[in-house]
């Protein structure tokens, strides 16, 4: 019987060795180890006829043989599963270079919105409130309250759209009227920015549009100085442009500030050496700004003896064009999806 068991082991191991697929392996398992008619089972039926030590020795051997066959079966099974899966994966290969179908419609924000959001977030992080104001404004808020009385020469440079039948209503030419509305509503101290549309009755060409976006900034507190304005503007610009900038102030006249400045930034294209982008001056005119005129603070309902501050205006449309290299301003309002989908 021992011989038979050894033979069984040899046969079984050999048979398992040669197997190439898991179905045949299952058949083999039944053939050798099947509970009812497996060869092992059949052999073991003879065990009960043996006695004593022989019985014991055969029993041990039988167990060894069984374990050996089981082990071989197990290994083979694992081996086969792995290779069969590998085979399967090969067959399932996809052309992953092909785009997914059906195509998902991809939406897009307008570039104005993207830049406006970036600015709003930066200013909010610096403690500024974001405000909004009417686009159709009164002459009072757009001009008079900003120290631009009727027939002031400064009105010349604001090519204003007037409203028919309402002499005292205009399409706002600047976001500055919200300075007054903000002071009246929130009082002081105050830190606000106002992104929004402005309107000027100007002929349209590649770099001018009658509708454009500004971002107005206003900071009101006690003892605000020219030195503060320089310091804060530098930080703000660095925040907006995400790089170090060098700035300079020079006089600029705007009736709602005193003193008023034009803030220039060292050209980011040439680093100040002079190039086409900065008109070979090395500096780019960026932000008109100044200390808020006491009359404007007063119009805002605050006491100019107590409160002071500064204001600035960022040309947002120009920033959008610079950021994305848009050469023609008309694309922004053209509603062309071939343009819009790029953002």
């Amino acid at each position: 019987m021992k011989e038979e068991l050894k033979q069984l082991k040899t046969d079984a191991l050999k048979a398992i060795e040669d197997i190439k697929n898991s179905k045949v392996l299952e058949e083999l398992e039944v053939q050798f180890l099947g509970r009812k008619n497996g060869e092992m089972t059949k052999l073991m039926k003879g065990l009960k006829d043996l006695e004593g030590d022989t019985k014991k020795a055969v029993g041990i051997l039988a167990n060894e043989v069984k374990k050996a066959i089981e082990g071989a079966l197990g290994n083979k099974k694992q081996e086969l599963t792995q290779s069969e899966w590998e085979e399967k994966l090969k067959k399932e290969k996809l052309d992953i270079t092909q785009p997914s179908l059906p195509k998902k419609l991809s939406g897009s924000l307008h570039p104005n919105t993207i830049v406006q959001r970036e600015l709003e977030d930066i200013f909010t992080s610096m403690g500024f409130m974001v405000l909004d104001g009417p686009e159709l404004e009164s002459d009072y808020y757009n001009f008079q309250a900003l120290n631009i009385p009727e027939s002031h020469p400064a009105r010349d440079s604001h090519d204003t759209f007037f409203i028919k039948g309402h002499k005292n209503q205009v399409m706002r030419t600047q976001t500055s009227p919200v300075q007054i509305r903000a002071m009246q509503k929130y009082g002081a101290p105050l830190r606000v920015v106002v992104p929004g549309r402005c309107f000027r009755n100007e002929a349209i060409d590649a770099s001018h549009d009658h509708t454009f976006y500004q971002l107005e900034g206003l900071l009101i507190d006690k003892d605000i100085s020219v030195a503060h304005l320089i310091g804060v503007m530098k930080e703000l610009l660095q925040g907006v442009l995400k790089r170090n900038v060098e700035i300079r102030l020079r006089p600029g006249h705007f009736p709602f500030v005193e003193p008023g400045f034009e803030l220039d930034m060292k050209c980011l294209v040439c680093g100040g050496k002079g190039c086409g982008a900065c008109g070979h001056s090395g500096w780019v005119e960026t932000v008109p700004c100044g200390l808020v005129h006491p009359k404007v603070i007063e119009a805002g309902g605050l006491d100019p003896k107590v409160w002071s501050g500064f204001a600035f205006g960022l040309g947002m449309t120009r920033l959008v064009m610079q950021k994305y290299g848009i050469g023609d301003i008309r694309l922004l309002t053209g509603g062309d999806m071939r343009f819009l989908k790029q953002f």
Partner: protein
Amino acid sequence: MLVSKNWLKQYVKLPDSLSPEELGLKLTMSTVEVEGINDLSKSLDGIVVGKILKIEKHPDADKLQVVKVDIGQKLKIVCGGTNLTEGMLVVVATIGAKVLWHGEGEPVEMKKTKIRGVESSGMICASEEIGLGDVYPKQSEVEILDLSLVIPAEAGIQAVGKPIVEVLGLDDVVFDIDNKSMTHRPDLWGHYGMAREVAALYNKDLKKYHPSKIKDGKEFKIKVEVKDQKLCPRYMAVALSGIEVKESPAWLKNYLISVGLRPINNIVDITNYILMDLGQPMHAFDAKHLMTINKIGTDKTIVVRPAKPKEEFTTLDGEDHVLDDSMLVIADEEKPVALAGIMGGLNSEINSDTTTVVLESANFEAVNIRKTAVKLGMRTDSSSRFEKSLDPLNAELAILRAVELIKEMCPKVKVASNLSDVSNFIVNSGPIEITFDFINKKIGQELEAKVIVKILESLGFSVKEKKDRFIVEVPSWRATKDISIAEDLIEEISRIYGYDNIAPQLPVFPIIPPEINEGKLLERKMLDLCIKEFGFNQVDNYAFVSKKQIENLGGVVEKYIELDNPLSKEKPYLRRNLILNLLENIEKNIEFFDAVKLVEVGKVFLEENPGLRMETKGDELLPEQNTWITGLVASKKEQEPFWEVKKFVERLSVIFYVNVEILVSKNTKPWQHSGRTAELVIEKVSIGSVSELNPLKAKNFGLDVRVGLVEINLDRFLEILKKLKPEKKYITISEFPEMVRDVSMTVKTKINHQDIVSEIKKVNELIKSIELFDVYHGSHIEKGSKSMAYHIIYGSFEKTLKTEDVDKIHKKVVKVLQDKFGVEIR
């Protein structure tokens, strides 16, 4: 404005080492914006004085001569000039110099050439060929410029070979100053004021402006009557006789040309010179055209009065104007002779037979001048200065200086009349009190008192120190409008001190988070939903729309607010909705794309609804300007784009935690499909609608696709969100399992899903939810009916439901559906 460096040098001595670029930069950084610097001498490089040694006929051309010229070396030049003589001093353009061919076009570089076989090393120039045609006008066509007449004989020999710029005093640099940067500085509109500024910047002395006084003449009297002293605070006039109207001397013409003015004759040129020198406009009348008093005797009356209504007047540019009584004129007893502060009249113009002139030097009120100039569409050098509020004291300096110059040029001239001066003005010289503390706080840096005093004094202020403050008196030329409060002085001190010298500082603020702008946040959420989940492209359209657009959508033009002065005559109206321009976008894009989904956020303008206040106090209100979000969906393949936009609004309840009801709309708008429009309602407040565009209206916009439309008033939506303050709360999950039963039925099409749901809900409280999962209209269903299938979910928080119980309720549901709606269960 153009500013000549030589002109400035009359009044302030500038270091030779100072380059024009440095001066330009200094002015830009401290005073006004210099937009360009033009070195006049550069254009005359290589053009020198030559002396003609010998003239010979050209062997091959009758009209040409071969000329030997000495320019320090000897040159042979072929020339066609007819007025050449041996020994004459001429202008020679050497090889490499640039000349204007026949005085026109772009400069051409001189090259060595052969003219009809004879070599020529340069050119003997006519005045126009070196850009001096206006200074030295030619008498005949082929005449070269004879320098012997220009250069004094004794200087002639030394001049040979020298650059023409040096010999003729043309070595000037002109600064082009941005007028917009000096609208607030009346004093800078003349060279003397600019020189004062430069002197302050470089810490140099400014030459005093001291024209000689004049003695009254006895020939006749001038009587000035000013009818409106508010509009004319000062009027000065004097008559000069013995005038000889002729060409001005070269120095005067050079100055005028350098600042862009064309020389006319000595009298006009002098008034223009004063204009550019002091910034004071003047006018000269021909006295013989001013009527004498009562048409007898010799005395003259000048009346400064408002124009009569519809009074006609021809200005000296030949233009006819009809005036009104808001305009000020200068008149004699009969007729206007000048439009005050703007332009003189053709009827009293100076010309070659003028022998007696009346000079006017006046001061007019800025706003009135500006209004008149705007009304008549005439902006002149004079009006653009008066509208800046000129210093009335300059009127006197100007008239004295003009008399001085005329006498210099015409020695026979006599003062013929009294110097009339009618004035009614106060110089508002302050004083302004300004404390040291104020200065330091405003600038943010401590400046020494003596530095401050020096700066202010250099600009003409007089300063007294008193305890903790300065008492500052404002000079007349800064007192008209420019400087009236302490803040104005801060600008003066800090700009001359130099903004670059102020160290940046950061203010200190308490850490308080800024108030969130809920409106902007809502805008963001809505846009993000459109873009990220539904693939919309955001557009940004103009706020202006056309009559045709309005009518195409079935709107009423009269309701629209209109611009008084639209840029595009076609689109003068302010939008009342965002649809109009969005439809144009769709029409433009649908050609290139199968599906177009566009969204816009923007304000619309409704005159009938109240908006914000127009002034701090008072009842007048602006029109309402709510922000709307509007999305349009169009696809060539989709016949029911309504569902796509509805899907969008269905997300609102989820995102904003409020129940946005989508109700059958009772009043559809003209542009909405009457059978496919729903109103969006939160707590009985309508915030917008979702619909299909009425296909008839779509056709008006050239669209033959179906268009889905969602419109939401974000201000309204925000208002209700702020009121409800909805918050997300977790709902407990029942421990007991739910049971689902389906019901599938045929229903009449007129019956709405919403009605079915509410009836089912009423049946039993164990019904947790009802989900529609299929709708079918088609060939297998009877016409006028639809097939609908629902999952009905039963559940309880208290117990596990028994099948029998659920079945019992479900039977009841079916019965209710049959009884109420006559459905046929499938």
